[in-house]
C-alpha cells in the first residue's frame, strides 16, 4: 500500500496524532498513525477491555443522493437495501462482472430517504465512484471510530446522542453546533460507534474523546483487532480472484434482487460448482505468526495460502486467515511454511475472538 513519491493526504487530525507522538505511515494514499507510544499490543488490549479511539478518516465517503439514489445502489452492490430502511447501515460488496471478484467491500450508511453515505476502502474510492457516481465528500469530514466494552459509557460523557445509536443504526447528532453522524458500526469485533464529524471541529471532538479516557489506537491495533474478529481486509481476504463465496461472505449476496447486480452470473456458476477454496482460520501452536503469502500444508501437500497473519494479543499465539482448498474442519493439524521453516498450526473456527455482539 506504499504510496511511493505521490503526495500523501493528511487527516484533519494529523496534528493531533503528531502531538500524541504517533508513528505515521503511508496507507492507501494517506499518512495515518500506525501506533502511539503505548504500542500496538497495549492499544489492542485497551480496545478489548476498555475503550479505544481510531482515526479512520482515510475511509472514503461518497455521497449518493436524490430520487435515483436507492435504485443506483441496489443495482450496483450485492446486498439488498430492501432488507433495511433509512437510519440503518449495511455491509455490501461491489463485484467484477466478469468473474465475481470483490472490487471493494463497503459500508452504506442510509442517512435519510434519498441520501446514502457510501464508505469504500481508502484506495478504492475512485472505483466505487465509477460504479455509483455521487460526490466524494471525504475531505469535508473526519471519521472517528470508538470501540470497546466501555466505549458507549465513555462516549455518553462527550456526545450522549451518538453513544445511544444502536448496532447498525445511523443517526444525526449535533455536537457544539455542528451536524455530525453516528453509526453503530466498527471493525474490531467490539461494540462501538463511528462518528463522522465536520473537519473544522474534528480536532475538538478527538481531544474531547481522548480526554475522557479513550486510548488512541493506530492502524497496527486496528489490523490485529480485525484479524482476531476474522473481519476481511480488501487486498487480503477479498480482491482480484477472490469472490464473496470463497471469503465465507455469502450472506452479503442477495441472489433474488429483481434487477440483479454485476457479477451475479459468475457467482451463480461458482455456487453451483462449489467454491474451489474457502476462508479458514489457522492458529500457530506457538507465538510465531503465519504471514500473508505463506503456504499452508496438510500431510505434506499444499492446501492453500495465508491471506493475513499476525500475533493475537488475546490468544498469545500466531493467528492467520487462509484460503484453503478441500475440507479441513477445525482441529485439523496443518503446517505453515514461514520463510522456509514449517511451523505447526491448527485449523480453527472463526472468529478467533468472539465477543458475541
Amino acid at each position: 500500500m506504499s504510496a511511493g513519491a505521490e503526495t500523501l493526504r493528511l487527516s484533519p487530525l494529523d496534528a493531533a496524532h503528531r502531538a500524541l507522538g504517533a508513528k505515521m505511515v503511508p496507507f492507501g494514499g494517506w499518512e495515518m498513525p500506525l501506533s502511539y507510544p503505548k504500542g500496538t499490543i497495549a492499544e489492542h488490549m485497551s480496545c478489548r477491555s476498555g475503550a479505544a479511539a481510531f482515526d479512520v478518516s482515510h475511509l472514503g465517503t461518497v455521497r449518493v443522493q436524490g430520487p435515483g439514489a436507492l435504485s443506483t445502489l441496489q443495482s450496483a452492490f450485492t446486498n439488498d437495501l430492501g432488507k433495511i430502511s433509512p437510519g440503518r447501515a449495511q455491509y455490501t460488496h461491489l463485484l467484477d462482472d466478469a468473474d465475481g471478484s470483490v472490487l471493494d467491500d463497503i459500508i452504506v450508511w442510509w442517512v435519510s430517504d434519498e441520501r446514502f453515505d457510501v464508505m469504500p476502502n481508502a484506495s478504492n474510492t475512485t472505483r466505487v465512484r465509477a460504479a455509483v457516481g455521487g460526490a466524494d465528500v471525504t475531505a469535508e469530514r473526519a471519521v472517528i471510530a470508538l470501540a470497546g466494552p466501555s466505549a458507549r459509557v465513555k462516549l455518553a460523557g462527550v456526545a450522549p446522542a451518538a453513544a445511544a445509536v444502536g448496532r447498525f443504526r445511523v443517526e444525526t447528532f449535533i455536537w457544539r453546533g455542528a451536524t455530525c453522524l453516528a453509526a453503530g458500526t466498527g471493525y474490531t469485533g467490539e461494540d462501538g460507534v463511528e462518528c463522522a464529524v465536520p473537519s473544522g471541529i474534528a480536532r475538538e471532538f478527538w481531544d474531547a474523546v481522548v480526554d475522557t479516557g479513550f486510548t488512541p489506537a493506530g492502524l497496527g491495533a486496528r489490523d490485529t483487532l480485525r484479524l482476531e474478529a476474522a473481519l476481511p481486509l480488501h487486498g487480503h481476504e477479498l480482491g482480484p480472484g477472490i469472490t464473496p463465496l470463497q471469503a465465507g461472505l455469502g450472506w452479503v449476496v442477495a441472489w433474488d434482487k429483481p434487477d440483479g447486480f454485476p457479477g451475479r452470473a459468475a457467482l451463480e456458476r461458482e455456487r453451483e460448482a462449489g467454491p474451489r477454496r474457502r476462508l479458514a482460520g489457522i492458529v500457530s501452536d506457538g507465538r510465531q505468526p503465519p504471514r500473508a503469502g505463506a503456504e499452508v500444508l496438510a500431510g505434506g501437500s499444499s492446501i492453500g495460502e495465508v491471506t493475513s497473519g499476525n500475533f493475537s494479543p488475546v490468544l498469545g499465539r500466531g493467528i492467520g486467515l487462509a484460503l484453503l482448498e478441500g475440507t479441513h474442519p477445525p482441529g485439523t493439524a496443518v503446517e505453515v511454511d514461514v520463510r522456509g521453516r514449517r511451523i505447526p498450526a491448527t485449523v480453527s473456527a472463526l472468529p478467533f475472538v468472539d465477543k458475541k455482539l
Partner: protein
Amino acid sequence: MNVPEHLRYTSDHEWARGDSDGVRIGITDYAQDSLGDVVFVQLPTPGRRVTAGESIAEVESTKSVSDIYAPIDGIVSEVNQELTDAPQRLNEDPYGEGWLCVIAPDGDSPLAPLMDADSYRGLIEG
C-alpha cells in the same frame, strides 16, 4: 534514543559487549523502537558457527520481521531462552534482559571493527 557509551554497535542496529564468557549481542533502543512490539524471536542454536554479516536470528514484531546478523565471527555459546516466552523484553530492556545471544569470538579483539557510541549516534541521528 538511548545509546550507552560502553557498548559497540553495527550499522544493522545491533549492540555488542565483551563479557568474560564471550561477546554478548542484542538490538539497540533505536531498533526496538522502529520495530514496534516484538512478538516472536527465532534464536540461533547454541554451538552454531557464525560468520560476521550472516543472518543468525529473526525478530518479529506486529508489523514486520527483521534479520539479526552476526556482528563477529565465532561460535554461539549461549542464547537468551527467556525471549521464547517473553519477547517483549527486547522492547522493555534492549540493552539488559533483552540480550539475544553470546558468541565465543574467533579473534583476540573482535569488537575492533565495530562502531563506538559516538559513531552510532551519528548514524541514527544523521
